[in-house]
């Protein structure tokens, strides 16, 4: 499977030449960011308590977001993969909606609904004492809105790749529908689910606009970087930017390793 042909192929050569332009375009700014920094500056920025707090808050909020996306999104994905009804694609389009709208718009819309007077924000504050404006919960709401589609879509692809006949056989072996979900569907879709959750986590950490509008405080890392940029300029902000980059990159390499180990059987849906 690995090498279709050992002979050099002009199409492959061409696409790799073109593709490397895009790779360079993505990597150049990140390398630039790394090269303008002296290690000393990096250490100095890393020692600042509010910088560390903001990065920690970003990681925590993104983790809560990912857990929420898993709890709410995986069931939706299973539903979309296993039911067939008119209007199903409309539901799928609704899931994709946050990908299509500007995140400033998302932030404003969230503020309207989750703000102190909002449909959800009002009752939640009154009856549950849960406030979203300027709280960790608000940060999570902002992150969840923009990142949940990744969790749903990846899990849906994972569930759809499972041969439905496997689930049918499981039923005839005496397993009820919940057993089938737990022992067949979830384990077989696990790798896709994990990929989706990794993307969700990544998207959550990187979100700026929706979070900044709904919950500017407590400051997440992107918001803090923006503030450093406004107050102290490029030097101070790029130090923290690089720091965030290093932390998240390390995290994703770790997550990918876990995903590879955890999903050894996802390739065999047959």
């Amino acid at each position, binding site marked *: 499977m690995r090498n279709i042909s050992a002979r050099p192929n002009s199409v492959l050569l061409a696409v790799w030449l073109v593709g490397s332009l895009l790779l360079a375009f993505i990597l150049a700014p990140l390398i630039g960011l790394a090269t303008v920094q002296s290690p000393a500056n990096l250490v100095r920025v890393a020692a600042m308590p509010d910088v560390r707090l903001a990065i920690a808050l970003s990681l925590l909020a993104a983790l809560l977001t990912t857990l929420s996306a898993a709890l709410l999104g995986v069931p939706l994905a299973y539903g979309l993969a296993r039911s067939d009804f008119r209007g199903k694609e409309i539901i799928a389009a609704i899931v994709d909606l946050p990908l299509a709208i500007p995140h400033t718009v998302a932030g404003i819309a969230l503020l309207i609904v989750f703000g102190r007077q909002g449909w959800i924000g009002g009752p939640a504050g009154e009856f549950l004492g849960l406030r979203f404006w300027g709280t960790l919960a608000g940060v999570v709401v902002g992150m969840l809105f923009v990142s949940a589609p990744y969790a749903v879509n990846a899990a849906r692809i994972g569930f759809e790749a499972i041969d439905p006949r496997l689930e*049918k056989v499981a039923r005839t072996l*005496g397993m009820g529908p919940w057993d089938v979900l737990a022992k067949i569907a979830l384990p077989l879709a696990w790798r896709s689910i994990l990929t989706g959750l990794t993307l969700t986590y990544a998207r959550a950490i990187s979100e700026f606009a929706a979070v900044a509008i709904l919950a500017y405080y407590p400051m997440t890392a992107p918001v803090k970087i923006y503030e450093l940029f406004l107050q102290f300029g490029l030097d101070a902000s790029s130090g923290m930017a690089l720091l965030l980059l290093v932390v998240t990159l390390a995290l994703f390499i770790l997550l990918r390793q876990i995903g590879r180990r955890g999903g050894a059987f996802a390739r065999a849906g047959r």
Partner: protein
Amino acid sequence: MTDAALAIERASLTLGQFSLRAIDLELEAGEIMVLLGPNGAGKSVCLELIAGFHRASSGRILIHGREVTDLPPEQRRVGLVFQNFGLFPHYTVAGNVSLGLRARRGAGRTGTARNVGELLSRFGVAHLSDRYPQDLSPGEKQRVALARALATQPDLFLFDEPFSALDARTRVSLREDLKAFLRHSGMPAIFVSHDQTDAALLADRVAVMNRGEILQVGAVSDIFGKPVNAFVAEFTGVENILTGRLSGQRGDLRRIEVADAVLHAPGGDFAGGEALLCLRAEEVGLRPGDDAAGPFGLVGATNRLSGKVVEAVSLGAITKVTVDCGFVLVARLTNRQARELALAPGREVIAEIEADSIHLLKPDAADRIAVANTRQANETISIPHPWRSAAQTRG
């Protein structure tokens, strides 16, 4: 109450454009039935109805007299085996089988306590217990799938085209393996297939389905020799389906004019007019035309016709010969017979057809539509008649 292994009583079901119409089917204890039909006939839907994945809109389903019409699949006690055998890729062989065992214990079923090891040894796959399904051969997969299904102590086995993705040789050996298992265990089974060889080799009885209806149920010899209509005849591989006109009686036999020739055949308990003649190509004998020509027409109980070879095509082990006897007749000969006759286009031959091998059918407009449609939908399955394909090409 009935003691049949399975009884389907007038079960109907509609799924979008497709519907099963008033299905009646009974399976004796220990009986193997092959549900035969083209793609889209409703065989799999029928199987899933029995397994409990569809609910009948009317009618009843009983397994060993126990009504299961409204039970979910996990309470029906049926073993289901699909194409590729449906082993769980994330469990080992032992894991797959123990899932079935655990489910049975969970349902509180009694019986000899078997463990996974015993079951696997019974199927001769104990040495594979730590392997994953992707590392098994098709034969091993089938055995594990049977062991897993048997672990739940089912009352009935259902097979949905388990061999359809296999090469011809593997198919033959797995079919033997499966038949031996079913005979030995005495387990009643329904086997869905579109392959007449599966039916001929596995079935005690065959049920032919098309468009959501069961057209004919019977022993293999009945289905292949006495099809109830042109669709069943064509689907079971009857090459000669001829239109003739009943024009008299001779002893016990009916006289039928087919194009410019006359044939005699028994039965056909209907009055004059048109009739369809079904004649399997392997029932047609050919002799050299110059070899003691003798009398033509009905000789004893044999129809003797003179004709000319139109075409002789080798199909590998056998040769398919098309003869013009006033109508177009297809014969199947062994290669040796074909060689001895020195068959070549234009060669004069005598066709011999036992009157008993001709099966008479009343032509029915609906059947002809079914035949026509099936030919379009299943080019690869039905063997087209040379004169009809010629007409199609011209038209």
